[in-house]
C-alpha cells in the first residue's frame, strides 16, 4: 500500500510543480504578446500556417533522441510574413535530412556506435554525427517546387527515381513551394519569399 502511495505522491507533486512552472511561463509569454502586439478591428492573433514539418521531423524535432540517432531529419525555420492581424507562417527547410547519419554503410552503424561510446564515457562530444556532414547542400531540396506538383490533381512529377521519395516528403517546405503558396493564399498580395540573416541567425520572410 505504501509503495503505490509513495509513487503517486511523487508523481503528483512533481507533475503539479512542473505544470505550475510551465503555465507561469506561458502566461508570461501571452502577456508580453498582448502588451506589444496591436491588432486592427477584425484582426486575429493566431497566424495561418501554410505548411508544416514532415511528420517524422514533427515528432523527433531537435530532441535528445534525434541527436542520439545522429540527426537524420531535417531542420527548419519558421517563416513569417503578412500584415498586422493577418500573419502567415510556414516551415521552411534549412538543413536537409541525411539518413547516412544513422547508417553509414553496411560496415558501420553510424551514430548507433556513437551512442554506445557516449554511454561508456558520458561525453556527448564523442557521438558521431554531431559535426558537419562534409556533404554539399542539395540546392533543389531547399528551393525547387517541382515535386509539389504531385499534390495537384492530374499532375505528377518525377526526376531521379531513387530520390523522389525524399523530395516528395519535403516538397512543402521548399522556398519555391512556399513562395507560390503564399501568392495563391493571398491572391498575389504577398508574392516573394526572402531569405535574410538577422542577428547572425537565418531568417526567411514572406
Amino acid at each position: 500500500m505504501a509503495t503505490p502511495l509513495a509513487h503517486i505522491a511523487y508523481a503528483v507533486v512533481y507533475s503539479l510543480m512542473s505544470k505550475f512552472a510551465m503555465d507561469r511561463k506561458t502566461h508570461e509569454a501571452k502577456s508580453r504578446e498582448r502588451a506589444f502586439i496591436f491588432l486592427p478591428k477584425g484582426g486575429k492573433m493566431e497566424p495561418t500556417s501554410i505548411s508544416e514539418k514532415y511528420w517524422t521531423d514533427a515528432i523527433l524535432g531537435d530532441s535528445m533522441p534525434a541527436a542520439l540517432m545522429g540527426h537524420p531529419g531535417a531542420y527548419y525555420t519558421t517563416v513569417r510574413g503578412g500584415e498586422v492581424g493577418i500573419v502567415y507562417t510556414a516551415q521552411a527547410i534549412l538543413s536537409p535530412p541525411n539518413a547516412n547519419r544513422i547508417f553509414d554503410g553496411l560496415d558501420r552503424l553510424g551514430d548507433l556506435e556513437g551512442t554506445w561510446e557516449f554511454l561508456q564515457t558520458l561525453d556527448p562530444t564523442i557521438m558521431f554525427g554531431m559535426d558537419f556532414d562534409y556533404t554539399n547542400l542539395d540546392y533543389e531540396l531547399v528551393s525547387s517546387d517541382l515535386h509539389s506538383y504531385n499534390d495537384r490533381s492530374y499532375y505528377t512529377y518525377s526526376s531521379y527515381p531513387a530520390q523522389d521519395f525524399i523530395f516528395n516528403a519535403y516538397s512543402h517546405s521548399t522556398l519555391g513551394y512556399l513562395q507560390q503558396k503564399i501568392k495563391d493564399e493571398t491572391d498575389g498580395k504577398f508574392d516573394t519569399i526572402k531569405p535574410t540573416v538577422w542577428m547572425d541567425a537565418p531568417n526567411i520572410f514572406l
Partner: protein
Amino acid sequence: MRGGNADYTLAQFYLYHPVIVDYETYKDLTSEFKDDTLVTGTLTVRVKSLYEKGGSRVLSAGVDPSDLLPVELERGYKAKISLSDGAFYYPIKSISIDVVMMGAKTIHVFIPPSYMDRYEIVGGNLYFTESIEDLLFEVNDDLEDEIQSTSFSKMYYKVHIKLGRVIPFVGRDSANAEVQTQMALAQNTYYAIMEYFNQYTFTKTTASMIDEIGYTALMTAISTAISSAVIALGSYLSKGIGQMLVQKGVINVQSDLAARVLMKNGSMSLKGVITNIAKSALQDVWEEVVNDGLIEIVAENVVSMVGGNEHWAYWISNVLTSARESASEPGGVFHEEASKKFQEECHQYIMENEAEYGSFTELRKAFWAEINEQQSTDQQNRAQKEDNKRDWKAFLISGSLKILGYTGKTMGIIFGWLNLMTTLNVIDVFTKGRAPAPKNFWKNLMIKYYFSMKIFNREYTFTKVCYLNLI
C-alpha cells in the same frame, strides 16, 4: 514581402529556374548514368481529350486544354496546359503523349524535336499552336484510325513534359549569355546564403543537443551516484541494526531460514558497492536521456499532431514518464542485489532441506507463513511485555532504536537535500564558471526539486530494502 514597386528593387529572381553549371560539369552529370537522369525531370499532366467519335465527344477527365482566355485565342493558341501561376522557367527538352484508351490500349506518341515550334511556355502555361488532337494525328498518321477502330470506355492524354533541371552554360558568345550569366550569379549568391543557413542551423542544433545531453547526463550521473552511495550506506546500517535487533532479542527469530537471511543477507563487498553505484548511474543516465526523451517527444508531438492541446500533451507525457520512473525504480540496483542474495539464500536452504519442502514455491509459502506467524507472535509478546513492564531493557532498546532510525532518516533527507544543493551549485561554478544567476532561479529550483524528489524516491526504496531485510 509586398508586390508592387518593391519588385523593381528586388534581386535577380532565382526560383523556378534550372540550375546553370559549366559545360564540363554538365558533361560529367550526363555521362555518369549514360543518360540525362541527373539533369532532367518529367512532369506528367493528365489532359482531357476533346476528340469526337461517332458524332459525340468521347468521355474523358483531366485538365481541359480548351480553357483559353480571349487574349490567348487572339495570340493564336489552340490549347493550354497550366503549369504555374506565372513563374516557370524550366526549358522543355521533349514532349511525348500517351493516348490512353481505358479498357483497351495505350498508344505512345513521341513529339519529334522538329515540332518544337508548335508549343512554348509563356507566363507559366504550356501553349500549343494547334489542338492536341491535331498535333497527335499529324505526328502519327495511323492514330485516328486506331482510335476509331478501338472500343474503349474513356480516353485521355498523358502529356509527359521532360524538363531541364540542370542546364549547361552556353558560352559567352551566345545570344543568351547575358541572361544566363545573371542567373548563374544569382544562383551562386543564393546557394552561398542557403549553405550558410544549412551549416548554421545544423551546427546550432547539434551544439544545443550536445549541451542538453551533456548537462542531463552529468546531473543524472552525479545525482544517482550520490544517492546510490547513500542507499548503500543506509542498507549497510540497516543490516547492522537488524542484526543487532536479533542479537539483542528485540526480534525473536525462531526460523532457521529467517535467521540465516537476517544475519547474512545484504553483506555487499566494497567492490560490489562501487560497481553498483556506477551501474545505477549509467542506468539512470540511459533512462533520462533516451527513455524519457523518447517518451516525452513522442507523447507531446503525437498529441499535438492528432489535435490535442499543449496541456493534454503535457499530462500524457507526464503520466508516461512517471509510469516509467515507477516501473524502472531508479536506484533499484541495490534492491535487486539484496533480492538476489535473498534468493540465493533461499535456494541454498532448499538444497539443504529439499526433502522437507520439495520446491521453491512450497518453501516460499512455508517461509512467509512462518514469518507472519512469528511477527504476530512477536507483536503479541511485545504488547504483553509493554503492558506488564516486565522487560524494561528490551523496551528501552527498541524505543531508542526506533527514534534513532526516524531521526536518522529525517536528517538524511534534510542533509541529502542540502548536500545536493551545494553539489549542484559547485557543479555550476565548475562547469559554467559562475554560480546560478538569479534569473535562472526557477529553472534551477525545478531541476533541484526534481533531483531531490528522485532522492526521496530512493530513500523510499532504501526503506523498502530495509523492510525486506528485516522481515
